[in-house]
Each structure stands twice: as C-alpha cells, then as structure tokens.
C-alpha cells in the first residue's frame, strides 16, 4: 500500500515536471504543493481513491487488450459457447461495491473536514464581481478590491462568499478550496496556509466575457507582516465602489 503510494506520487511528480508548470512561482499545483492540513487531507483522500479505483482501470483495459490479442479469429477456429456464469456476475457486482464502500470512508471524513472548520482566526468576506474580487475584513475594518488577498501564515482563514452579479467560483488549487459565490446567499469555505508565499487561482464558474481573466492572487505573509499590512491598509483604505453593478 505504502509502496503503491510512493510509486503514484513519483509518477505524478514526473508528469508535473513534464508539464513545465509546477516549478514556476506562483504556486498552483496542489498535488505537488498542497498548502495546509485541509489541502493535504484532500490529496491523501485522492491518492487513497486512486489506489482503490485504478486497479479496475488496469484490470478492464488489460483484459480487453489480452482478449484482442489472444482471441483473434483463426481459420478453422471455434468460438467458445458460454454466455452466462452466475458466480462471475455476482463477483463483479459485489467486489466493486465493496471497494467503493471502503473508498467512501476517508471521503466522508474529508468532506466533514471541509465543512466543519477549526476555530477561525480570521474571517474574510469574498464578493465576486464581473470580473474581479472584492475582499472585506469585517473585524479589522479593511476592505478593497482588485488586489491580492493577504492572509497570515498558519492561521485558520474562513471565507464567507457572495456575489453582486452572476455566479462566480473562488478557486485556489493549492489550498484545496473551490467554492461558488452566488448572488443572494452566502457560502462558506476555509483554509490554513502554512508557508508564506504567493498563491494563484482563478474564477472557475463561467461568469461572462472576461471569465478567463478573473484571476485570484493570495499573498500569505507572516503574522507580524499581516499586522503591519492591516495598519497600513487602514490608513489608506477607501470604501470600494460596490455600486457599479447591482
């Protein structure tokens, strides 16, 4: 089991290298660089599911390939006559069902972790606009738009998401977070980034003409830097223009 995981991991890393993407800053790749406990749990849930499910892919494709090579028609050859086998049919119903039941266990645990955040250290309101993001720090009294979200490293950040126009989706792969921002309701997500750095994402729900350019930047800084950033922000903070779209 452990060996398979290492093997899988190495393979994915190699593909990652080949894709030229992962070595570049900023960090987007959650398989190579999952950031924080939630993203790591999502990744291990994914690997576990792959270990459970992939054998069926190789089994089916392998049997198919074998049959294609082995059972090519030969002159004078006779086809087998069997066309049912109850034991076989029960087996290939029950074994996949059991496998999926096992896969479901860590899946439900991870879902619970996604839905029930630990005690929040920082609450940020995220508001989608065509085609930019607005962020509000209610407790700190800071709000701004069209700039990077800044959060302190190691802290639990909870997001309350909404939208003033169409459905958007806030997606930062490295944090294991994707959550739609709907008009008329508030949705929730959380993450805990441990390492300071620059993380990139983008809007994931088609939101109109410039959807492709609706990027997300997150700057994770040390808690001290965060305090200073808040103070600086407060000095110059202006209420953002939220009236441009209703």
């Amino acid at each position: 089991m452990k060996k398979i995981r290492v093997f899988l991991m190495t393979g994915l890393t190699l593909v990652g290298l080949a894709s030229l993407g992962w070595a570049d800053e900023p960090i987007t790749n959650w398989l190579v660089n999952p950031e924080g406990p939630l993203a790591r749990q999502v990744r291990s849930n994914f690997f576990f599911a792959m270990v459970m499910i992939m054998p069926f892919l190789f089994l089916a494709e392998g049997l198919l390939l074998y049959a294609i090579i082995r059972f090519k028609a030969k002159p004078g050859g006779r086809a087998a006559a069997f066309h049912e086998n109850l034991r076989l049919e029960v087996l290939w119903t029950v074994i996949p069902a059991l496998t999926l039941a096992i896969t479901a266990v860590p899946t439900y645990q991870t879902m619970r972790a996604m839905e029930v955040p630990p005690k929040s250290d920082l609450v940020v309101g995220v508001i989608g606009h065509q085609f930019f993001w607005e962020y509000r720090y209610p407790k700190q009294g800071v709000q701004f738009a069209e700039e990077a979200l800044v959060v302190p490293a190691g802290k639990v950040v909870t997001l309350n998401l909404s939208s003033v126009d169409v459905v958007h989706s806030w997606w930062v792969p490295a944090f294991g977070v994707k959550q739609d921002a709907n008009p008329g309701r508030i949705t929730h997500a959380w993450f805990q980034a441990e390492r300071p750095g620059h993380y990139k994402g983008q809007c994931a729900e088609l939101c109109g003409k410039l959807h492709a350019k609706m990027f997300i930047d997150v700057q994770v800084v040390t808690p001290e830097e965060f305090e200073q950033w808040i103070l600086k922000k407060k000095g110059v903070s202006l209420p953002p223009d939220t009236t441009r779209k209703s």
Partner: protein
Amino acid sequence: MSERAAGLKRWLTTTDHKDIGILYLVTSLFMAVFGGAFAGLLRAQLSAADLKLLNPDLYNQFLSMHGTLMIFFVIIPAMAGFGNYFVPLLIGARDMAFPKLNALSYWLVIPAAGLMFGSFFVQGGTAQTGWTGYVPLASRQFSGTPGVDMWILGLHLVGLSSILGAINFLVTIINMRAPGMGYFKMPLFVWTWFVNATLILFATPVLAGALTMALTDRAFGTGFFRPSEGGDPLLWQHLFWFYSHPAVYIMVLPGMGIVSHVLPAFSNKKIFGYKGIAVATAAIGIIGFMVWAHHMFTSGISPALRAFFAFMTMVIAVPTGVKIFSWLATIWGGQIRFSTAMKFALGFIALFVMGGISGLTLAVVPFDVQVHDSYYVVAHLHYVLFGGSVMALLAGTFFWFPKMSGRILDEKLGNVIFWLVFLGMNITFLPMHWLGIVGMARRVYTYRPEFEFWNQVASFGYILLFAGGMLLLYNMFKAVRKGERAAEDPWGVYPLQRTLDWSVSSPPPVENFAKIPEIV
C-alpha cells in the same frame, strides 16, 4: 402505405420509420460538421496562450453552441435515428406505433436548428453562457441578446421532439413486439431504447419547465431565479441537472445497446449475461435520476445533499461495471473478426472505461471540488460522450450502413478512420485531465503560459479527429454511389444471433415483413 413516393417528395412526406431514421441520421451528421467546426475554432484559439484569433465574445458563443449542437442536435438525434430504424425492425414490427407523430418528432428538429443557427445573426449574437445556461448569467440583465431567447425556444422544440419520440418508442416496444417476443427476449438495443425512452419521458418535461421559467424571467420579469424577487439561481441548477444528468444516459444507453450487438456479432459468440445487461440498463436508468446534484458539489448545497449524491454516484458505477465486465466476457474465448465496426466497439470499451473511472473519481467529493469546472471535467465528459456515445455511433454506422443503404462502407478506409479517431481522441482529451488537475479552468478563451504545452498537444489531436471526420463523410459518399452491394446478412451473423434486422433484405422492404415473424 405500401407504395413509396419518389425523390424529394419521398423524404418530405415520409412516415416510414426507416426513412425517418435516415433523416435523423443525416441531420445529425450535418450538425456534427458545424459542432466539429466550432470545436476546431476553440482548439485553434487555445493552441497558444493569449492568442487573439477569436475575441472573448465569439469564443464564448462558439463554446456554448459547440456543446448545445453536439448534445441536442448530434448525439441525441443520431441515437433517435438508429432507434427509429432498428427498434421496429428488431421487434418484428412494420413501423412505429404512431408514424405521423414520428414524422412530427423529426420535423420539430429542423425549426429548432434554424433557431440555433439564426441566434448567431441577431444583435449581440447567440448565448455566451455555455450549454448549461446558468442564471443569472443567462438572465436579461447579463445576457440581453435575443440570441438567448432563441436558444431557449430551440431547446424547447428539440425537447418536445424528444418527448413525442419517447412516447412513440414506449408504445411501440410495449405493444408491437412480434408474437413470442417477451421482454427478456428483446434484443439489447431495444432494451436500451426502452429504458432510454422512459428516461426522456420523465426527465425532459423538467427541462421544459426550467426553460419556461427562464423565458418568463427574461420576458416578463417573473423572478423565479432572481434573489431580489425571492427567487434562487440554484433552482435553475437543480432543475437543469435533473434533466441533464439523465441526458448523459440518454446519450450513452442506446450506444451501449449498439455495442451489445456488435461485440457478439464479430466474436462469433452470444452476448454474455444478457439478463444482467438488461437489468443493469434499467438500474442505471433509475439511479440516473438520483445523481444530478453531483454537478453542484461546489455550489453551496447542504452537506447532507453532498453526502447523498456522492453515495449515489458511487452506486451507479456498479451496474456500469457489470456491463463492462459482461462485454469483456462476451469477446472472451471468441473468434474475433476485426471489422471496422468491431474496432469501434472495442475502442468504445477502452475509452468508456476511462470515462467511467474518471467519473468515479469525481464522486470523491473533495477531489471533485478541486477539479470541478476545470479541464479535468472537460476530459471526463469527452471520454464519456466522445469515447462512449460517438464511438458507439460509429460502430453502429459501420455495422448497420449496409442494412440501411444496401451498400458496404469501405473497410480499408474504415481502418484509417478508426485509427485517426481513436488516436486523435486520446491526444486531444487525455492531456486535459492533467491540465485540470494543475489548475486550468474550463470555458476560458485563454490561459496562463504554464498550460501552453498540453494545450498545443490537444489542439494537434483535433487535426487527426478532423481528418477522421472528413474521411468518414467521403467513405459514405463513395459507398452510396458505388459501394459493394450488401446481401441480407453481409456480416454473416444471423445464424448465431438470430436478430431480425439481418433476416430481411438490405435495405428492408417497405413495412419490413410480408408476414410478421414468430419468435421461438
């Protein structure tokens, strides 16, 4: 009617199920040329980062129409085409139960297609909302163009066409089977259409309701989907996917039926686990109604709903697995003849398994949340709809073309077409799994430079698919004009399979059977 009008009049006035089947298939092929061309434009724009080939407005229009055409005007009508032609033939009936209703079902598709094409030419162009038409993006406020209204009305018409067709199929299959043909003696293509028609009958009216709400929201400001009027955008998503998830099975079940004929025919064996496949088909049909919200795992639905729909999505994999293993057991120990139809059927298994497995990973909610609305989903859905539905349709085309036209498609050319399509499909869509995992969102007219390499690979794959498509058209054109003549049973499958399609001339006479056959 036993006399048939000649020339154009025949095609405009026909109520013969075989002629209507051919009309559906030709229409579907015609629409596939446009759907495929739009895909080509998308792949051209994505062949390099920040290319300025298409502006974002046009890109989003072609993107929306590529999906709409391929689903509602290519795959669904093509399945209806084969269904029309072969369901009555396979159950030993002379026609569908309601021939005139059948003609109406077909002719509704034409004005619907007219609305879709016409919507490009109104001010503001057609819908830019993707084929899913999510509100509020598709509301009047954010998509003022009358193109969206035309898109809605066009979908209404194809929906009506589907519903009327489904009623016809159900009545035909229930009432018009030849004496002696019990339900568990029906060929599997008939079984899949039986379940399919039921799905269409229960799912499509829900789409019609949702479309009507969207239309009145746009035209009269009713506010079904507007929070400021007490409505909810998520209501659209629920209603839309309540239809559109079963629609995936509507697009793939008859294809599974086709494959269940082709595989035993060219393995010189009987289908393995006939009852298992029939029951699995029905199970997929029922469970298929209980998985729709897996398209909405990131939308903010409640944890209980996420848990339920994740569970059901895993459950539906089980009957699907039963089918795949049964097909493998069908060819096991056989004497496989690698005709083009058989290659496409084997290719179907290879690719549909991939699509099924990637679909299963999407039931793992935490992973789904990561890759939802990314290129991973684009890869997955093309493995199911191209690797599944289209490969099965191509298998059916090479298998049944001789029956429908009396001419055999060139097999050598068929081999080239198969390899172009099979390789092109994998080169185009396999890299998209990876693009999605590393963070490329879907429905984007451009992307960050780090995604360029695999996008270029995907765009190259399209060239192979395009060549395959063109060669297929040429092959058909050539066969109709001077192809080898087909006898009753050109593949030599009747002695073992005993399906009635191979018991009559190619093409079959008007009303198929001089005397209704008895099934023993």
